[in-house]
């Protein structure tokens, strides 16, 4: 009898709207009430609802797996064992069926066309030509940047040393990916770490920027979907997960300009065929989160 699901998502607004509409078309009779905002704001909202013991959403579609891992550890998520995960890498979904990645949003390097050299690897940003010209989103404020931080610091080749040397080379932070992109696009800074779709989409419209995946590989957030253990309509919620993981759902993601998570789906225009990812241990990331952020604040100030 319950034909409505509530979705909290950090998808971009237009995308969220399209996703919901496509889902409703595919599953007539299920109504969707949705709310979108940035991942951390969305989590705050959800936290407040947890505190008041009245969480509203059935489905959660947010940026990163670390957050999902935390929720899983708190027992907030429902295990969906029979989810259609065929065609997905093992790293892209929870082995207990608590959450499933839906796309790959990588963090790579963006540079302005005016830049004196074209960076190939992360370490290129340590060159003296890049002094005072590097900007990146602060992991203290942005979820995707936090994943990037954990990925970099877990990489034995880069580690904290990279950050220390970047800071010494005059790299600064901005609140989020948007700020980083704007700074590079406007030429105020010339290099930055940023999530892929901002420069890729805007380059197509004329922005003087280029996005590359560094030789070391990119970090990624994978926009996992999960069902809350307190869901009012778990059946409807499962349908929503099914839809996102289906070819139809994945093609939609690609059409929206994201790298799809499922194999065999054509990536959108401007994206590389395959993105090389650095590995990330989400459990370790979650455990180290507070300390790493403190360390980051020490290195970059703030």
């Amino acid at each position, binding site marked *: 009898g319950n034909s409505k699901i509530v979705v909290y998502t950090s998808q*971009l*607004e*237009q995308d969220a709207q399209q996703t919901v509409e496509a889902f409703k078309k595919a599953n007539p009779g299920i109504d969707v*009430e*949705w*709310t*979108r*905002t*940035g991942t*951390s*704001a969305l*989590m*705050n*909202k959800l*936290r*407040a*609802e*947890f*505190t*008041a013991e*009245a969480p*509203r959403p059935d489905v959660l579609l947010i940026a990163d797996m*670390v*957050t999902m891992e*935390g929720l899983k550890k708190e027992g907030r998520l429902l295990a969906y064992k029979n989810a259609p995960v065929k065609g997905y890498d093992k790293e892209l979904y929870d082995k207990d069926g608590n959450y499933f990645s839906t796309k790959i949003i990588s963090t790579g390097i963006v540079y302005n066309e*005016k830049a004196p050299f074209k960076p190939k690897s992360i370490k290129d940003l340590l060159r003296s030509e890049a002094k*005072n*010209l590097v*900007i990146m989103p*602060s992991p*203290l*404020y942005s*979820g995707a940047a936090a994943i990037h931080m954990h990925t970099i610091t877990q990489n034995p080749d880069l580690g904290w040393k990279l950050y220390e040397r970047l800071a010494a080379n005059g790299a*600064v*932070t*901005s*609140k989020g990916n*948007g700020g980083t*992109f*704007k700074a590079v*696009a*406007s*030429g*105020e*800074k*010339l290099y930055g770490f940023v999530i892929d*779709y901002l420069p890729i*989409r*805007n*380059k197509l419209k*004329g*922005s*003087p*920027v280029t996005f590359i995946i560094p030789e070391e590989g990119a970090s990624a957030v994978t926009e996992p979907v999960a069902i809350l253990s307190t869901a009012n309509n778990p059946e409807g919620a499962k349908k929503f997960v099914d839809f996102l993981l289906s070819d139809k759902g994945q093609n939609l993601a690609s059409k929206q300009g994201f790298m799809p998570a499922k194999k065999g789906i054509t990536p959108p225009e401007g994206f590389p065929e395959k993105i090389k990812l650095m590995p990330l241990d989400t459990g370790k990331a979650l455990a180290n*989160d507070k300390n790493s*952020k403190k360390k980051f*604040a020490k290195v*970059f*100030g*703030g």
Partner: protein
Amino acid sequence: MKLSSIARSGIIPARGNGLSLFIPVILAVCILSLMPTVRLLIEGVAPDGVWGLGILREIIGEQSTWTALKHTMFVGLSATLLATFVGCAMGLLIGLTDIRLRKTLTFCFMVPMMIPPQITALSWIQLFGPSSALLNMLGIAPAPGTPHPMYSAWGIALLLGIQQAPLVFLSLKSGLAAMPREMVEAARTCGAGKTRVLLDIVLPLMTPALTVGMALAFVSCIGNFGIPAMLGIPAGYTVLTTLIYQKLANFGPDVIAEAASLSILVSLLALFGVLLQSYVLSRKDFRLVGAPSESLKYKLGKKKWIAESGCWIVIILILVVPVAALFISSLIPSYGVVLSAKTMTFANYISVLFKHDATIRAFINSFALAGGASLILCLIGIPVGYFMVWQRNSLLRFLSPLIELPYALPGVVLSIGCILLFIKPLPVIGISIYGTIWIILIAYLARFLAMGLRPIVGGFLQTDVAMEEAARMCGAGFARRMYDIVLPLIMPAAATGGLFVFLAAFNELTVSVLLWSSGSETLGVVIYNMDDSGNSVLSSSVSILVILAVIALMLVLSAIGRKAPKGSIPWQC
């Protein structure tokens, strides 16, 4: 205790003075303004309903907390001083001298309150940065990567100060309009020249107006997030509000309790500002005896053009530059593209107006929310001010500093308080307003009550109580008196307050970003979402539309305002 003895002790007003209205007013104030804050602060000391000071202690023990507190104090105080200086200078020039185009100047000085501070910051950085079209044209643009002076504590203070200057300006201007000219003339006959009169008479008499404006500016500064986020994060300069955001961006279940604990600090700081204000006001008497007469017009003589060009330079810096920057980025197809005849496009406007139905919905929602909030706050504010000032009600006087809290807290924190409070169905009617537009309205009421109330309290302080007594003598009952006498007398002040509220609420973001859901998006949310998607050019065009809408609205108000009591419309001298 018998009702009459409570009344005598001043907790409730004496009989016949609107007792029946008083109780609902008090309840409304408490629920609207204090409950969300109190609910949140409780979370700081009793996370998840279990009493425990552990998290609070941990927060207090951290070095970063104290650094942020120090930064907040520094930025807040210097910005308040700057706002006072700029607001005073503009207020005195426009309110007391024969400077030309006073109405236009006032009007222009009000508009910047409508421009999100981040936009101003961004436009300044661009104007004086490596990619500045202006500086590049002159060939003096700094090389890319040159450290920008705006990314510093001083930059934050400068921008906050300019952003809040209109608050001081408007408060001062309405104060000046109520000052009898004899006050100044008496000093002139004592031989005091213009400067002396200004320092000895005008400014002291304007202490209520100035402290009201300054306290408001201070509270706004310490609660502001946008500017420290824009300018402080690259400089590694953390203030309390950005620290709260850091906490909120953490993974883990303690997030809210930590933010709530830090909010207690912000609250204390805001209270400190407000109490300082009450202390200043209680020390001396500022009631003006005598009717306000023809306003003063000091002749500036030959120095007029200096004053005028000073004013216009300020206007150019705080209005023309940011709006021009916004306008330019609304005309290009994508961020970073240089505007030229070839690249210019109106596609962004067409897209937001016709392809993006949320924009129109947001306009309607924001208009209704801001209009509703300012109207309701005027209606609540007038009786509150009346009971507090004219009836010297001790309960309200005790509550008044607390009303400031929701305004000082970062919007996200306040909205978390609202969620905690309103997520369960309301007790009597049994429906939940959570997830509807009503919770945003209530959050706005809580947030802006102080803003709307301040000018009203100032107005009551400066009006002779005998005005109301004369109406009582005529047999007019409480409601009648309020409507016929108190309302029109306080209308100018209330309208100023209402306008503040409207402007602040119209493109409010930080509160609504947690409270909106599909269908109840506000303009701030729409702009934020577009910006978040990397569509800065779209968000710029919506911002330009917002500014146009506000200017249109202000013009309509001016047209209607010709019939309203003198002073209702701040920019009509």
